[in-house]
């Protein structure tokens, strides 16, 4: 049984395309990364899955259940971290967490642990949400979604606004949820983040799902740019290889595009004295180009 299963799910806003013919099958116990640039259709998909938008055509099932007839049952095991967090500003964090937990009609067994892990103190919780920083609001949104231990978590760019330490806390909880057989649908435009925690990745662009792959395969195909500055002038022909592409080679500077295993390249570089090496995280656009090509 799939936790999420969509069939030709399509949403148009008048003549404007939101998402088109989306067919997803996400298993239980899987972290599914939904990756795409801004405006690609990620948030539309999430809002469709949460029934906040009505599909133009197509259907979807959650936990194998018909979302038209059994939505109330489904929501009992579903939680959401919305993108662009906006909350009830005039209530305290503590009131908000209690309110969300009571609405779900279930206890919140993970609440104390989450509060501790994300370091939200009781004095923080007593303050009104309108006085919270962006990061604190994000933490609160994550805690409300996870506190009642849902079977399915739908998260729209949940790490936005979090510092690196809290990002790690979030990833740790997501892995734990996965290991407990829960499903996480995770949208992001941050490629390294998706590579780090997801089991499978779906790439969406211009409202269409371009590809779906296990994250290992995806990482292997990811193109990364490496810029090296050597201590001495190099002979550019020495770097001709089928394993990477030389983009630029001028004097002591070399720029390469690399995908897959980088060890042969590192072995080659070890023969030279290097002054500086820049190997940034891959950009989403470069990865898309690979798939388009």
């Amino acid at each position, binding site marked *: 049984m799939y936790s999420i299963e969509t069939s030709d799910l399509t949403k148009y806003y008048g003549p404007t395309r939101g998402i088109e013919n989306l067919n997803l099958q996400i298993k239980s116990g899987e972290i599914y990364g939904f990756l795409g640039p801004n405006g690609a259709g990620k948030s539309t998909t999430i809002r469709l899955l949460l029934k*906040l*938008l009505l599909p133009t055509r197509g259907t979807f099932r959650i936990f194998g259940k018909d979302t038209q007839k059994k939505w109330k049952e489904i929501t009992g095991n*579903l939680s*959401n971290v919305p993108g662009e967090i*906006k909350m009830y500003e005039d*209530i305290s964090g503590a009131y908000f967490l209690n309110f969300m937990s*009571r*609405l*779900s009609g279930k206890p919140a067994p993970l609440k104390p642990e989450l509060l501790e892990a994300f370091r939200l103190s009781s004095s923080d919780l007593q303050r009104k949400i309108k006085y919270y920083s962006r990061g604190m609001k994000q933490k609160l949104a994550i805690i*409300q979604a996870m506190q009642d231990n849902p079977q399915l978590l739908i998260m729209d760019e949940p790490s936005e606004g979090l510092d690196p330490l809290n990002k790690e806390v979030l990833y740790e909880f997501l892995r734990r949820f996965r290991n407990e057989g829960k499903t996480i649908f995770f949208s992001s435009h941050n490629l390294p983040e998706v590579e780090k925690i997801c089991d499978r990745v779906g790439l969406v662009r211009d409202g269409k799902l371009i590809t779906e792959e296990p994250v290992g395969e995806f990482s292997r195909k990811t193109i990364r740019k490496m810029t090296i500055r050597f201590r001495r002038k190099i002979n550019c022909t020495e770097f001709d290889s089928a394993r990477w592409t030389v983009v630029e080679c001028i004097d002591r500077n070399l720029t390469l595009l690399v995908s897959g295993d980088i060890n042969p390249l590192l072995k080659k570089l070890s023969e030279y004295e290097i002054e500086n090496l820049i190997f940034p995280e891959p950009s989403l656009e470069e990865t898309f180009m690979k798939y388009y090509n």
Partner: protein
Amino acid sequence: MNSWYHIKKIFHDQKLMVAILFVFLMFFQFMFSWIAFESAMGAMLETYIQFLPKMIVNLLELQTGGPAFASQMLAFGYSHPLILTAVFAMLINLAARYIAGESENHTFDLLLVRPVSRTRIVSNVFLVQLSVTALLSISMFAGTVLGKIIFDINIALSRYALAVLTGFFFFNGIGSMALLISTYSFEKGKAVARSVGLIVFLFFYHTIFKMWTSMNDLLYISYFQIYVPGRIVGGLDDWRVKSLIAALVTIACFLAAVHRFRYRDL
């Protein structure tokens, strides 16, 4: 049952406003009983109204020169523009904030992912409107009762109770219209503006045809003609018919709001 917490939250947000309005309305009606029956201002007002043009006197529904003036004056307090403005503002605010406002702020993204249906959300806001209207109606009547007890006024309280009851249905009609408008709006400000616009239109329609005596027949289709407390207290209007019409408007607007909210994007 868990959606009860949604209602509780709305009351939690609005408790101060409701409390202030409750006290204000009670005090206002109490003061009206003092003005109409105890103070010299009542006689002064009666003299003043005699000098007003006939069309204005028609609009106020106050018959001067008889013993009924003070009773009518007391009933007029229930539909005084200040009272109408205060109650309408409260009802419009509830609908706009908890339907259009939540849509604007995307807080429905959190709420509707819980086992709370869209129908329940609209019903909850409607229930809060009903409760607030009931509370405010009680406070107005309590002001009159207080006046009767303190000033020992000789009035038939039951007639005033019927006027307040009709007012309860009338106000709920306005509340459900605001609710319907909010389900068509994605921003709180627009929902408020549209609701105020509708009320202003209904009020001016009523005012114009009430002052224009040869066009008085058109008042039969004026929503504000439902609630003329002076006529209900004086037995000139059948409160049952008026209340029934207001209740039908309320139910129709509520059902339309539920339908609209169930089938719209958020």
